[in-house]
């Protein structure tokens, strides 16, 4: 079954084309790394996948729901971690998560159980009553991932979630996202330009100048050279 499907998607800001007829699928339970240099169109793609913007051309399906015709159903299936921090700094960890739970139709004991489970999963339980302002960058990021899991989504979208984190925190959240695929069958789309966050068995979609240059297993790209080199070769070649 397909977790995420993008078909013939295009988007332009006025005369400037940001995405040009891109298509790819991510199977359920798969980890897909979306890599591309700055300006490749990753953020535009994320804005379209999360319906912050819509396009007249192309379709997006999330866990079998068409985002254009059934936006509420599709959005209910996704957990999102934006590149830009999106927490309420003056509210506590708990309040941030209960606000999110409410937006997703959870309340009472169901919301409480989901929030506790998400916090436990990210080792954030002891921070429950702290104000977000007092958390460091790593903990804030973990909290954003915990928040994205509160409503038990089947597809997780993360837009450069490791930006600004130290090596240990970066590694921890990368491993955690891989773990969610293996243990919970979650579909993960992970946008990054850091190739060391990608495992050999991951699917890789390389986006460059609004087009999909490659969509294949990581191993296919790393047969004779490291991923970083393969990525640079591909993007340089197309410049």
């Amino acid at each position, binding site marked *: 079954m397909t977790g995420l499907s993008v078909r013939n998607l295009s988007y332009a800001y006025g005369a400037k084309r940001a995405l040009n007829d891109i298509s790819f699928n991510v199977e359920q339970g798969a980890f897909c790394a979306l890599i591309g240099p700055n300006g490749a169109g990753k*953020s*535009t793609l994320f*804005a379209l996948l*999360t*319906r*912050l*913007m*819509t396009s007249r051309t192309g379709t997006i399906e999330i866990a079998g729901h068409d985002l254009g015709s059934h*936006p*509420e*159903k*599709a*959005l*209910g299936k*996704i957990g*999102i971690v*934006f590149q*830009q*921090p*999106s*927490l*309420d700094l*003056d*509210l506590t960890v708990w*309040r941030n998560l*209960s*606000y*999110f*739970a*409410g*937006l*997703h*139709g*959870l*309340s009472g004991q169901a919301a409480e159980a989901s929030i506790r489970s998400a916090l436990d999963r990210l080792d954030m339980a002891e921070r429950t009553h702290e104000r977000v302002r007092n958390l460091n960058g790593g903990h804030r990021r973990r909290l954003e991932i915990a*928040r994205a899991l509160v409503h038990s989504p089947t597809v997780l979208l993360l837009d450069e979630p490791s930006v600004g984190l130290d090596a240990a925190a970066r590694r921890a959240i990368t491993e955690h996202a891989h773990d969610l695929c293996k243990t919970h069958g979650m579909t993960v789309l992970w946008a990054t330009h850091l190739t060391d966050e990608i495992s050999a068995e991951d699917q890789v979609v390389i986006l460059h100048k609004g087009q999909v240059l490659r969509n294949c297993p990581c191993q296919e790209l790393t047969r004779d050279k490291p991923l970083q080199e393969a990525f640079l070769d591909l993007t340089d070649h197309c410049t």
Partner: protein
Amino acid sequence: MTASLLALRAIVIRDVLRFVHQRSRFVAALVRPLIWLVVFAAGFRGAFGPLTPPPHVTPISYEMYILPGLCGMILLFNGMQSALSLVYDREMGSMRILLTSPLPRWWLLVCRLLSSTAISLLQVYAFLLVAMAFGIHIPLAGYVSALPAVFLAGLMLGAFGLAMSSSIHQLENFAGVMNFVIFPTFFLSSALYPLVQMGGSSALLLALCELNPFTHAVELIRFAFAGHVNWSALAWILATGAVFMGITFRQYTPVRGLR
């Protein structure tokens, strides 16, 4: 409770908590109209003499005259403050969390409007309580009959703020716009002086005051304080509120994008 109502509750709780945490905002919301009521009114009492604005049939004090206008001032400032917080949310990223929740976007915007109006109501009644301590009060029934009027006026002015927020893309621009919007809106109304005074000096200014939806918000509250309904003000407020929300829905549609 349905998902829509749960979202509304979540948004109201969040906004109220944020408001409670911003104590200075609450204090400013109370002090600003109090200065007008205590200081400004003391100076202008003599200038206007006894006033008999509709629906009153006997003269009332100047303090009693400006009381509805100052309630309107709180609603106006809070409407703008909510719009500012929306621009802030958009810049800080938390707006994305709201707009990517699985509910129709129009409903999410209505939730924001209702939550900002709830905060406005809280501020207006806190102000009326403090005014009462200064000896300026209306009949007890007026506090009850004013509730729907204050609520509707708050909705209209909140919608005005939302419509403004949707066309302002940077926080820095907002401060300037607020100054150019709040003061003309407030002064070109019946909040501080009867419109007949304005008509005596300029027909154009009088026309602007009569067109100003804020004038109708103030008059709706003034009538409600006295236990009456000003139907034309009510119709004007409902119509302009609907137009402002229409603009907001149009501006925040995903087709226009929010990155």
